[in-house]
């Protein structure tokens, strides 16, 4: 609605009035509508359900059971959607566009995400603030997942909030959760509103070592995607600051050297590739395959094309050398599902099983 709040509200109310004529309850599917819920009920004498009016008390009750400190952090789901919000920085080329499209689709559906929590102050990336909370910096699911037990992960929707209102909305969410948690008997629960980092943020926290995610941590500049501006892809210096070159050893002893946009990956011969991935149970002529180079350069669309091209029952072997490859593959599977293709996936538990689960959760539309 281009920021025209009055027109938006009138449009919603008109739709609700019409809908209320032949239903028993009206569900307001977006948080931006929540402020209209009381007036709608009063006007139409119809019950309604919405978020966050229903969601916050429920989440608060669960917080109470969690007995942890909760820090609410918002991810703006409106334009521009930072490419790093779910999947890391989008690579150049068509794959990048595909990722951003998926991120937008995800945000379109669930909007904002609130993080998150913890009872491990020793692992707080910013100890100087002394908040005693494990603030999961950013909302890449891997962060939340890595935090382990004690983390509380709430998905919410705040697309309707204006940038200027987000700090207040953030505090409001925390207060709502806290109130609900206390009402549920969670006396030990303490909630606080965290900084809004996902859009317009200027720093984020990274470990000083790339060998693990444990501290010490340092603040690094991140691409400043300001609300109201078109999404800006980080240049190569920013990408290197966020994702420094590193070597990783994946299955089969392959390695990748990441330097800017260049990805060099020694490829196995098809027969070796298929044999390795299937423990010799499948032959190259009966399998479709997708190399990591293809997934890295073509993005989810390239992998999706492979998935859509196979016959029923034909195995598809997708090589994922790094975590980013897994993200691409998970996104591709979702794209395939969106086009009606059903598939069964398998990932090695030793190395990629956890990553597959995590990235599938992130890519779920």
């Amino acid at each position: 609605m281009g920021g025209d709040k009055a027109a938006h509200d009138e449009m919603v109310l008109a739709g609700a009035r019409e809908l209320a004529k032949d239903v028993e309850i009206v569900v307001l599917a977006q948080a931006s509508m929540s402020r209209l819920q009381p007036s709608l009920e009063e006007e139409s004498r119809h019950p309604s359900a919405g978020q966050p009016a229903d969601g916050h008390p429920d989440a608060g009750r669960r917080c109470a059971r969690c007995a942890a400190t909760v820090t609410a952090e918002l991810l703006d789901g409106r334009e521009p959607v930072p490419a790093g919000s779910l999947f890391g920085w989008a690579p150049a080329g068509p794959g990048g566009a595909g990722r951003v499209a998926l991120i937008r689709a995800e945000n379109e559906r669930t909007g904002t995400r609130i993080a998150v929590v913890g009872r491990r102050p020793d692992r707080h990336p910013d100890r100087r603030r002394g908040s005693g909370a494990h603030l999961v910096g950013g909302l890449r699911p891997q962060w939340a997942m890595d935090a382990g037990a004690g983390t509380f992960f709430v998905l919410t929707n705040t697309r309707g909030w204006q940038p200027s209102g987000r700090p207040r909305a953030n505090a409001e969410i925390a207060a709502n959760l806290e109130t609900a948690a206390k009402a549920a008997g969670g006396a030990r629960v303490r909630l606080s509103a965290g900084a809004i980092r996902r859009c317009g943020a200027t720093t984020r926290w990274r470990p000083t070592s790339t060998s693990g995610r444990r501290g010490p941590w340092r603040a690094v500049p991140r691409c400043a995607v300001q609300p109201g501006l078109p999404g800006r892809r980080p240049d190569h210096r920013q990408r290197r600051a966020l994702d420094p070159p590193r070597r990783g050893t994946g299955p089969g002893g392959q390695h990748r050297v990441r330097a800017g946009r260049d990805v060099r990956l020694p490829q196995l011969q098809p027969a070796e590739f298929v044999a390795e991935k299937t423990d010799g149970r499948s032959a190259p002529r009966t399998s479709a395959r997708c190399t990591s180079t293809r997934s890295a350069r073509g993005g989810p669309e390239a992998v999706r094309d492979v998935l859509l091209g196979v016959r029923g029952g034909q195995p598809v072997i997708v090589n994922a050398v790094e975590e980013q490859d897994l993200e691409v593959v998970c996104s591709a599977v979702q794209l395939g599902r969106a086009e009606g293709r059903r598939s069964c996936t398998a990932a090695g538990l030793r190395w990629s099983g956890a990553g597959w689960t995590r990235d599938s959760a992130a890519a779920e539309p």
Partner: protein
Amino acid sequence: MLLARPDLDAARKAVEVPIVKIDDAMATHAAANASRIGVLATVPTTLGPTADLIHAHAGELGRDVQVVRTSARGRSRP
């Protein structure tokens, strides 16, 4: 409860991270209190997942519900 989200459900089992979807309570409330439910959104892509979520919660509750999806710009499909 993460209905209609098998991947997230699997993730929760794998990592023991409590995950709450903020519209779960909304969907539960609607499914438990009405049999003909209207879903209203200004973004059409929100309608499908929300309707699916309501159906999933209704199934969990053993209720048979009918969901009417309506875009604030006009009725899409029942």
